[in-house]
């Protein structure tokens, strides 16, 4: 373990209506075994001791699964390490004297609420528009009555691993939510349980995406590069297929 000193340039914005700006902070004695959020914790303890307002940021599980954390680190959503969330990024990825620029996930559909904290409820509304199988509790058939080939279950699981962090949106030049939406559509399209509603699902979820102000996909592939769960853009191809088929049949 060693210790480094850093210069942090952090986006500070009091609320959605306020203008924000980058503020500079020097931080010494950052242990390289710390996680990025623990580094922010010690900055916040320091700011508190100085009578200044700590930096607001979202976080909860701190083990890469709840999808609550996230910020753009030197221009990259969730920072330089591949396939990790911000809470799993460790300070050993940085060197003595580095300057780190920390900004919120920006997108038209994600208003900044305070500092690094944004409103991602648009993603919830996409799921609400159709990201489910319509079954009520009770009266379902035995779990083994519907055999599902292991390979399909695995592919569905690959897609289902999405944590809803929104990094894909923040990194997309068009602010599209295609990777997120396609992950759910793929999971359910790959499983027999999802078949009955697949057309309606694709149409509703895509319509909701548009309504929320997310942009269109132009194959920039930035989303896949930053996704902490390795969600593949093959899912987007699957979404397009599902949507096209649904639109043709419905039309």
């Amino acid at each position: 373990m060693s210790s480094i000193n850093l210069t942090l340039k952090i986006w500070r914005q009091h609320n959605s209506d306020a203008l924000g700006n980058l503020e500079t902070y020097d931080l010494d004695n950052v242990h390289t075994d710390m996680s990025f959020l623990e580094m922010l914790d010690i900055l916040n303890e320091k700011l508190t001791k100085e009578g200044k307002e700590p930096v607001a940021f979202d976080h909860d599980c701190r083990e890469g699964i709840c999808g609550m954390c996230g910020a753009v680190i030197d221009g990259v959503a969730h920072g330089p390490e591949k396939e990790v969330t911000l809470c799993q990024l460790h300070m050993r990825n940085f060197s003595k004297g580095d300057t780190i620029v920390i900004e919120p996930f920006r997108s038209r559909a994600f208003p900044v609420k305070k500092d690094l904290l944004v409103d991602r409820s648009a993603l919830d509304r996409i799921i609400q528009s159709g990201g489910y199988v319509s079954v009520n509790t009770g009266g379902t058939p035995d779990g083994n009555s519907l055999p599902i080939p292991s390979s399909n279950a695995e592919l569905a699981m690959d897609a289902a691993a999405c944590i809803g962090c929104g990094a894909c949106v923040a990194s997309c030049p068009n602010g599209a939510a295609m990777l997120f939406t396609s992950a759910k559509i793929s999971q359910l399209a790959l499983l027999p349980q999802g078949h009955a509603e697949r057309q309606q699902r694709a149409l509703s979820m895509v319509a909701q995406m548009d309504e929320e102000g997310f942009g269109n996909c132009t194959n920039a592939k930035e989303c896949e590069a930053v996704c902490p769960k390795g969600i593949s853009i093959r899912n987007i191809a699957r979404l397009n297929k599902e949507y096209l088929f649904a639109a043709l049949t419905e039309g």
Partner: protein
Amino acid sequence: MELNSRVPSGPLADKWNNHKFSNKLVNPANRRKYKVIVVGTGLAGASASATLAEQGYEVQTFCIQDSPRRAHSIAAQGGINAAKNYQNDGDSVHRLFYDTIKGGDFRAREANVYRLAEVSNEIIDQCVAQGVPFAREYGGTLANRSFGGAQVSRTFYARGQTGQQLLLGAYSALSRQINAGNVKMFNRREMMDVVLVDGKARGITVRDVMTGKIESYYADVVILATGGYGNAYFLSTNAMASNVTAAWRAHKKGAGFANPSFVQIHPTCIPVHGDYQSKLTLMSESLRNDGRVWVPRKVGDKRRPSEIPEEDRDYYLENKYPSFGNLVPRDVASRNAKEQCDEGKGVGNTGLAVYLDFADAIKRDGEETILKKYGNLFQMYEKITDSNPVEEPMLIYPAVHYTMGGLWVDYDLMTTIPGLFAIGECNFSDHGANRLGASALMQGLADGYFIIATSVAHYLATNSLEKILGSEAPFKDSKKEVEDRIDKLLQNSADGPAGKLTVDEVHKELGRLLWDHCGMAREGGSLEKALKELPEIKKKFWDNVYIPGNGKDLNQSLERAGRVADFVEFAEIMIRDALARNESCGCHLREESQTEEHEAKRDDENYTHVSVWEHISGDEAPKMHKEELKFEFVTPSQRSYK
């Protein structure tokens, strides 16, 4: 405080069916006239909200996070138990019941645990129908693994992300009901109080954490699904926002709190590496199947592990417990690790760790086989610690993981406040003094999908509730109380931080006190000492904590302060509860109650009961009540792992 468990009579296997039949119902047309509040969207809260909304109730659901999908349940890794017996290896409802009640060291209610085992099978069917991608065999049937020392293979899983997938299943059902207009979802709200009208729970008061606004909501029943309180210890495997606030405020309004000192400490976590550490990460228990636990024989041996020859190593679990070895239950493994470190044999920078060594397993089975089994865990470990377990033994240490204690509930999951229900980890019901692996997910979903709706219907059908509007005096009083409390939290901060402490500093001090005195091994004198030290911490908190900013805005320091204030108050009944239970049982050892070989000794004659605490207002000490536990269908046996 009256403790009527309302356990139905009759043979064990018929109780739940009989109860469902004898409980009153609300007809579908009338359900939409009733409002239900659910606090929490973990497995328990999300499944309850969706189910009640499907049945026609008007549901309002609340959570702290920015989305219901982020509840702490999302982090569960290992799996969920069910008595399907798909492997044909002799499993049954009765066996799952027996394993769970024995695992809990005979400190849970027989009838509740049996019901849990009974509905476990329906949970799997429900989740499959929702599209939860459980692991499958090549032929397409559901796969199982064995877990937590059970002799049968009954755990269903979705890679190492079972909690995530089950929660996303419940979240999808909830989302569907939100879309249908049957659930109104309130994100980023922290519940601060329960509102009672005529002695019945009729609403809650919450703080909108984005705006600081204090709001009240009214309903006909209130269901708490707010999770466990492991964060009282500051460091735990729980998510950062996990808290006792909701349960504690309910307790202060009259809900009995059961077995607050029953806390599970998990043996295989990544050790603390510095005082900046914010939480602990669990490494799956399965690692003990192939890893060997050891420490150096000599105190203060600072050599690298590879330089320590066999004869200077102490494989203490294998030596002490020859028949179970490294696979002793969680509590035994945890306690022994702490003992070794207390003796000065701990390893790593801090001396608070033991080795979990895979060298022999790799020699025996080859690196490839071991990596196939544990590759993802090794990777996760390496990411956090920067050390590769193939080359160097892992460092592990116990950490607070799960709280068996919680709000006391009857068979209907109702607390001692009429109309206030508690489900999931926030109640005390099913795990006794120790929870078995893969059974918390089962309990959360059993409560939410299959039990609570029956209870709610019965309550509504048998109570006549006055019409209210949410503007009555109790609502105003509750709001005022919450506002005053927030002002009180902020009162010391007007003149700046000079000479003051931060919220985390006090929280860490509380955590250390609980860990040292009310952890794995407890002793009367030491608990008394903790009880004496607690008021000092409380005073420090209220006189000396600086909170930046104000209450009219997003203020994460203020949120933490509110939770820590409640943990500090709550710690008193934890310690008192530990003190009152002069027996070793489940997860904890009581030094005064040991066998000659220094193993835990349960005392059935004096402690076959649930300890239920009643809050007494003013400065008076809380009062303890007992619910005696009767074992009609199983005979409590003593555990032995020698």
